[in-house]
């Protein structure tokens, strides 16, 4: 169910503040030849919304068009972003970024200046504006569109300036650039130990807690990669079978592509395990002992396991990228597709085909793991893209915990962020060649599940949308780095670990000395508390919740079976496996037929905003 257009989704009335009297000390604002009369008060007002280290390059008064009500305000270009500030609205210091009006420079997919009815100029980084624009259109790579009409009457130079400033700022920005100051200022606010909203899976303790939650008894947390010397793309800690020694792991992992050997992703309470690993390193020549080690790591105590080729039947990375480009073109407001050709155009993008393929494969694997109680190993050559997608989907399908807000965020953190999904590369930060929005494909799959089972998810589609949009906001390192190693290097916490190497479980650093890194899960950076409230799905069936009466952080071993009402007679309750069987065949088997796979939420966005 889609609750109105994108424009309305987060339309919470802007907070009106008392008109600011008295100048609150103008800060370091570069005012390059701005017309004097009204600018002083304005600019000080604007500056108050700046991030640390942010500089206003140009601004111009304008009117936001395309959405009712039209709003007058100011278009501002800074060295970090383009933002529209409605009149009488002031940024809340607690949420320094606006989810509605901010466009990080890297998010700008297309910039158009319009004059009159016919003059349209597409502005690429470095191009020169040929006329004074009456209107500017900013197309976000996240499908958003900001349409600003400039005020006439002597302010044309400003319109020209701000447009040129955007063009230039875009040329200078880079994908990897981060709103650096925000981390500092925000983290500083917490004064002292600030717990991340969800475990970031950067400490052995996090892994140990999670392992206990899943009840994975045959597994332990390995510290072999603590110094990232087994694989830089792997997290510092991961789960391996109890019986395997760290030395064996080190040797065995060497035979896998980029050192990504088999690790546990999820332990099913019925006893089966879901593992993921990279492809076998073709040039390696393992000796007998290594082969035995690899085998015992893959089998992990099970008599037989199923090895699934993740790449089989799923789109290639290039396919995903192409489909996404087509999809975005289709959703542009000026897309030339006639309404009666919409469906075939949508089909032509193949995006929904890929969504279906993912859901289908994940549901097959989920039945294997839950109903058949069979261990499954996901194998993908790189182990950093489709493995994450499949493993997360399987967990969403099979474990109710993963469908809570907390559980889902932990899942993404564990299977994507910590597992080394190359976000920066895949989102186009390092050139187009390897760009492929696998993560967005995953989010679309989740959205489909949410559509199909609206009572089974604690989070709403607003939450998914917020996560989708956050991918293009460079405020935290979550999506700006490719590996946990790079992320750790950046936030400077690496030193505290590598210098003092303690065997076994390393002590978590004392709260005060450790400056925790902000992550995408710090929603209050970008969203007001009213918006964050909308992350909750009001239709969530609390009975589905694994332990609604317990505080969320103490999620215990799975006891979700008790809460489900099984139809008597159709299920012979002979044992655990039988009941799981019913669970997956009754409830959470996703529908991947075209009839069930709906148009995706972010599809209609461009259209809604136009």
């Amino acid at each position: 169910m889609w609750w109105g257009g994108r424009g309305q989704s987060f339309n919470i009335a802007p907070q009106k503040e008392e008109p600011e009297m008295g100048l609150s000390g103008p800060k370091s604002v570069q005012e390059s030849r701005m017309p004097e009369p009204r600018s002083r008060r304005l600019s000080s007002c604007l500056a108050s919304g700046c991030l640390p280290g942010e500089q206003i390059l140009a601004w111009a008064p304008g009117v936001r068009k395309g959405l009712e009500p039209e709003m007058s305000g100011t278009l501002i270009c800074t060295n970090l972003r383009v933002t529209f500030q409605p009149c009488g609205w002031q940024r809340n210091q607690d949420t320094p970024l606006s989810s509605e009006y901010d466009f990080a420079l890297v998010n700008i997919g297309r910039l158009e200046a319009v004059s009159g009815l016919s003059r349209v100029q597409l502005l690429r980084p470095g191009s020169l504006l040929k006329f004074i624009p009456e209107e500017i259109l900013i197309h976000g790579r996240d499908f958003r569109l900001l349409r600003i009409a400039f005020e006439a009457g002597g302010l044309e130079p400003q319109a020209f300036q701000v447009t040129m400033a955007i063009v230039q700022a875009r040329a200078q920005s880079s994908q990897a650039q981060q709103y650096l100051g925000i981390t500092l200022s925000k983290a500083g606010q917490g004064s002292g130990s600030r717990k991340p909203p969800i475990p970031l899976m950067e400490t052995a303790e996090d892994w140990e807690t999670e392992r206990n939650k899943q009840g994975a008894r045959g597994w332990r947390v390995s510290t072999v990669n603590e110094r990232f010397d087994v694989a830089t793309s792997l997290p510092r800690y991961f789960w391996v079978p109890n019986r395997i020694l760290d030395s064996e792991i080190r040797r065995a992992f060497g035979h896998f592509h980029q050192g990504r050997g088999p690790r546990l992703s999820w332990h099913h309470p019925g006893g089966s395990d879901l593992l993921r690993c990279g492809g076998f390193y073709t040039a390696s020549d393992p000796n007998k002992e290594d082969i035995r080690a690899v085998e015992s790591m893959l089998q992990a105590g099970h008599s037989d396991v199923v090895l699934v080729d993740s790449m089989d039947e799923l789109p290639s990375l290039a396919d995903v990228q192409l489909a996404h480009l087509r999809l975005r073109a289709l959703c542009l407001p000026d897309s030339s597709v006639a309404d009666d050709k919409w469906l075939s155009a949508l089909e032509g993008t193949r995006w929904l085909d890929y969504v279906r393929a993912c859901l289908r494969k994940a549901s097959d694997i989920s039945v294997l793991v839950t109903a058949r109680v069979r261990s499954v190993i996901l194998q993908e050559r790189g182990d950093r893209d489709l493995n994450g997608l499949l493993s997360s989907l399987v967990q969403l399908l099979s474990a109710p915990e993963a469908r809570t807000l907390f559980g889902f965020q932990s899942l993404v953190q564990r299977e994507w962020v910590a597992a080394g999904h190359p976000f920066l590369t895949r989102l186009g930060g390092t050139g187009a060649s390897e760009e492929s929005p696998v993560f967005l494909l995953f989010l679309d799959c989740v959205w489909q599940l949410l559509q199909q089972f609206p009572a089974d998810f604690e989070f709403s589609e607003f939450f998914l949308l917020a996560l989708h949009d956050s991918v293009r906001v460079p405020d935290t390192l979550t999506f700006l780095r490719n590996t946990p190693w790079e992320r750790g290097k950046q936030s400077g916490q690496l030193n505290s670990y590598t210098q003092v190497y303690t065997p076994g479980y390393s002590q978590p650093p004392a709260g005060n000395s450790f400056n925790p890194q902000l992550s995408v899960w710090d929603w209050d950076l970008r969203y007001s508390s009213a918006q964050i409230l909308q992350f909750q799905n009001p239709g969530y069936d609390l009975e589905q919740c694994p332990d609604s009466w317990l505080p969320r952080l103490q999620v215990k071993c799975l006891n979700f079976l008790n809460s489900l009402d099984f139809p008597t007679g159709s299920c012979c309750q002979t044992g655990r496996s039988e009941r799981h069987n019913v669970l997956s065949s009754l409830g959470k088997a996703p529908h991947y037929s075209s009839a069930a796979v709906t148009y995706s939420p972010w599809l209609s966005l461009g259209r809604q905003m136009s």
Partner: protein
Amino acid sequence: MLGKGVVGGGGGTKAPKPSFVSYVRPEEIHTNEKEVTEKEVTLHLLPGEQVLCEASTVLKYVQEDSSQHGVYGRLVCTDFKIAFLGDDESTLDNDETQFKNKVIGENDITLHCVDQIYGVFDEKKKTLFGQLKKYPEKLIIHCKDLRVFQFCLRYTKEEEVKRIVSGIIHHTQAPKLLKRLFLFSYATAAQNNTVTDPKNHTVMFDSLKDWCWELERTKGNMKYKAVSVNEDYEVCERLPAYFVVPTPLPEENVQRFQGHGIPIWCWSCHNGSALLKMSALPKEQDDGILQIQKSFFDRIYKTIHRPPYEIVKTEDLSSNFLSLQEIQTAYSKFKQLFLIDNSTEFWDTDIKWFSLLESSSWLDIIRRCLKKAIEITECMEAQNMNVLLLEENASDLCCLISSLVQLMMDPHCRTRIGFQSLIQKEWVMGGHCFLDRCNHLRQNDKEEVPVFLLFLDCVWQLVHQHPPAFEFTETYLTVLSDSLYIPIFSTFFFNSPHQKDTNMHQRQLSLPLTQSKSSPKRGFFREETDHLIKNLLGKRISKLINSSDELQDNFREFYDTWHSKPTDYHGLLLPHIEGPEIKVWAQRYLRWIPEAQILGGGRVATMSKLLEMMEEVQSLQEKIDERHHSQQAPQAEAPCLLRNSARLSSLFPFALLQRHSSKPVLPTSGWKALGDEDDLAKQEDEFVDLGDV
């Protein structure tokens, strides 16, 4: 439920019944045959219903299974329905259907509901009609409500096969006379049973009073009057006995061309503008007659174009808009997507689903109808114009568009009673040829056009987009669409009120039936549009109405402005008509396809959650009240259909729970087994049976 029946009186042995489900070989059948006849299940017959032929030991395939699973039983054909009576009651004991029709059981097909019959000869599927030389081993029946039945006749006696197959073909496909409709046998036999529900306030528009009431309700009585000039259908058999025309219009004008060329009032808007309809004047070649028509028309035109009447805009629905043939072609393509014999077929069409949907252009036709209705709404609402709908007989697209306009503009029509009154006014009294358009008599397939279904689908789009604006749900619409094929109520079985009145009346008085007058031919495959009318009207009006470009702009602005504002559910209501917004009416079209069900999901899940919360609020309120009065009230737990949301299907209430099989098709490639190969192979077999648990 019907068809499930009761165990026959005689030797009702309660011995454990042998299961006739699945994999029974013919030899076993013969040994069991006697027993089968012993526990015969009685057929529930309606008053006046007669059994025509039957066959035993018919195997009904369980639909979603391409394998040979099935239920044995009797196949019976009466003059009302085809019924299958399963022998194995264990499958029927479960309360599997959430929704039960009081008249039609799960395995009943009314004769009017049969769409196509196929026979399978040596694995080849052929359409069956007329006299057969060879009898099929399998009978596939496609229904108009999109159910698909497959009956295996391999184990049935040959003469029984002949009798049942030719019986079914004859009674469903051969042209029929109106007087042979089951409706009449039923009406005669069940006369005493007709109960008039006093609570049913649906306005029938069969009296002058009803029309006056409607005029008053819409404040149209200042400029329009109800007339009874056609009281005994003396003027025209196409028109209802009573209708409404502009006040100054002389009544003799109505008689002039048998009601053609007369502006007939449909509805008045709050701002005074009105929606009118007119059936075109007969096409003439003779210049003299043309002259007469022209002068007649001038007079009419003068009447409706003087103040107090608003400027009139004419919408000629016969040209520049949908043709009935387009609708027919589109629907016949569209329905094939849902008439699915087995799951293989389902998955085959799945790959190209969107383009198949699009190529049927059914959804586009819906969009065009909605768009036309919005355009007319814009004229009336924003430009304060009268709109005159023009069509050859003013009984197909006129009904559709005028009902849609009223639905969008008049919140009264969005209540259940209001909606029923609307259908009664615009469709039944408006003379929509239900008999021909549904092809109930099988006399002319070309006349079969699902105009009414198209209307319901348009309404569904509105309901789907704005559920809070409607008192009724999509289920109501689905049930309404089904009732088109149940010949018990006379509503949807006549071409005009005149036809209904004469036939029902005579029948009830048990007078010998006179040769029923066949309705005047209204072939819609007209080569050319009615130039006369177009010219007459066009010339005069072209200077008054805006150019089409401007019209488009007006439309766009009206549409965009409305959608950018918060919706008032009790005011004007416009649908979204963009490409992604026109959707498939899943509940109606997909309800019999198990593969398309989402158990425990879909909108139903949210709805049931909502109901649960409302119940909770209510019970809390009660508790508060209780405390207030310090009295102990008994805890009444209202049974709720929607409880146990985890078990409900997205296609609630039509879906059958037990039917669902979750059988993920494991791709054979890409699975590598480590460890015991044999064990895995064994497990694969188990896996196939997963769905039966």
